[in-house]
């Protein structure tokens, strides 16, 4: 380098002169769409819900007076605790069932379908293209008095007691919600299984591990976080549901979501409904926190 080529202070590669705004302005600008999205569609509505749950309803009108009366009333009501317990049981059972079924399906598809696995995965996800209401309604038909299952039992010679076994019960709720949750649980379990490198299974076999041991010691530990995420998605989806209880639940199948609907709708108690809503959200977050303890994967797949 000779002195003729510009002054040393400004010509170095590392010291390219910076002009204009500080860096954080640019970063914020790039993030802006996401921030606006989160603020408008997530933060603000939930803050309103939280606020409403501490206000009072008077003849169907929300009065901005801070009070914990909604929660006191809710937690002292026996019905709430029954519904909470039932909702938890239904949601946990159907989310667990959905995760197990989705995991098994994803396992078979990833390990056995070879080049057709993407097509098979798509087939599992296709029900999502159909309206939620339609899918639940389909189960109402299958489970109903004149439905497929009842018809089978009738041809087998069972009386009217047996034909009304299915619909409007917790069983019908669990069946329907499991079905609804499967595609969601499938997405994350499929991704997790797909990411397990095949050479690890060869290495395990090489070390003397049989098929079951390979699954237990290699596949399962590496896919457990994915399965946990699938379970969490299924649980959150099912926990706040109100459509399925309304259609196939009957009295025995009433859930917390139904309560929210009633409070906001016929009950005209928006404040009380908000309290139930907040309770649902809080329970869901609590469960997600617990699950996240199991989703941490120390290993890095390469």
């Amino acid at each position: 380098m000779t002195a003729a080529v510009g002054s040393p202070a400004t010509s170095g590669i590392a010291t390219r002169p910076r002009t204009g705004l500080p860096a954080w302005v640019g970063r914020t600008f790039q993030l802006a769409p996401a921030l606006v999205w989160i603020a408008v569609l997530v933060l603000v509505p939930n803050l309103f819900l939280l606020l409403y749950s501490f206000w009072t309803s008077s003849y169907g009108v929300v009065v901005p007076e801070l009070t914990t009366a909604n929660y006191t009333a809710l937690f002292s009501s026996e019905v709430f605790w029954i519904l909470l317990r039932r909702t938890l049981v239904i949601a946990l059972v159907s989310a667990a069932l959905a995760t197990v079924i989705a995991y098994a399906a994803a396992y078979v598809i990833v390990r056995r379908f070879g080049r057709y696995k993407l097509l098979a995965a798509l087939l599992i996800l296709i029900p999502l293209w159909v309206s939620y209401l339609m899918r639940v309604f389909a189960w109402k038909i299958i489970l109903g008095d004149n439905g497929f299952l009842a018809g089978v039992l009738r041809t087998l010679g069972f009386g009217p007691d047996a034909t009304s076994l299915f619909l409007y019960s917790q069983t019908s709720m669990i069946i329907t919600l499991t079905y609804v949750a499967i595609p969601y649980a499938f997405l994350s379990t499929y991704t997790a299984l797909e990411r397990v490198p095949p050479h690890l299974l060869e290495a395990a076999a090489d070390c003397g591990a049989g098929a079951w041991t390979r699954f237990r010691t290699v596949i399962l530990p590496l896919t457990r976080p994915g399965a946990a995420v699938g379970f969490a998605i299924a649980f959150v989806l099912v926990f706040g549901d109100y459509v399925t209880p309304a259609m196939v639940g009957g009295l025995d199948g009433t859930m917390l979501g139904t309560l929210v609907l009633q409070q906001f709708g016929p009950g005209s108690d928006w404040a009380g409904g908000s309290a139930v809503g907040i309770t649902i959200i809080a329970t869901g977050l609590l469960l997600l926190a617990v699950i996240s303890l199991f989703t941490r994967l120390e290993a890095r797949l390469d």
Partner: protein
Amino acid sequence: MPAETISPAEAQSTPEAAGASPPVVELRQVRKVYPGTAHPAVDDVSIIINEGEFFSILGSSGSGKTTTLRMIAGFEQPTGGQVLLSGVDVSGVPANHRDVNTVFQNYALFPHMKVRANVAYPLKMKRVSRAEIGPRVQEALERVDMASYADRLPHQLSGGQRQRIALARALVGRPRLLLLDEPLGALDFKLRESMLGLLKRLQREVGITFVYVTHDQGEALAMSDKVAVMSKGRVEQIGTPQEIYRVPATSFVAGFIGKTNLLRCQAAGPTSARSGSMRFATSSACSQGTFSVSVRPEAIVVGDDARSCANHFSGVVDDVAFLGHVYELQAVVGDQRLTLRVDEFNGARGDVIDIGWSAEATVVVEEAGP
């Protein structure tokens, strides 16, 4: 199920090998055709690997060397022929029932297990008692100088360190046979050197038969007791590194192993051949028709030494390259262009020099494949 593992005690000797212990590995006319492909990946491969040998399978990518290894390991089943381990036909025996361990090119360490658990894994599968596992893992880690890394996870290690752990995991179960699938392929040059030393030392210490797959002829020559050179699914030649280098059976082998001058010739006598205007004595009988001879660059001498050689020509220097330990010259003799390596050279491009080599250095090779 340890009981089904092929162990030396159960090994039944084949009739033809009665008396002597059967070879650790024997491939008989093994053939492998992958579904949906027209050409076999491995075709009519017969190899015998004896106890304690360091055996290399050398070939470029697509030569079928890795497929051959995978059939020995049990990851692939041959389409035809037989694979025998210690004299026992292992057709249909899955990898987990073979007393064979593999070191994979991409290490294949279990990412969710610490180094200690990775190395202990084969022992757990063999249902070795807990009290014995600890010391044996420790010993295996010490062998590869990785004892202080026992509590790390694989992603916290460098490539060379991971490969050492993979080696420890493969050796800890004391298999009869260790398969290495291009174990140094992903390592840089310096690491490769030190790993080569480690591998050779380990093999000497543990006395296990090694089958080493590589595309690097330098590695294969330096490490092996025997080398099988593969090309297009077939074995071109099996022999000691010296045989492979000095007496290549085919022009493919001659060209693949080191640098050589391949001259197309016709027979001009019982042990003499003609190539263009050159006529020279050969090491062995010349076949009829057209064939090739291989002359290694370092077998060629120049100057006064050349005049006493069986094959003596005069050539024009076309290029001189100084490689550090030798000079590499390009010389034109008649219509042929020869590469030669000499320790000292003081001439320049355009000089006329005497060039010569012995009859022994003129190796007749077959044409490679159809």
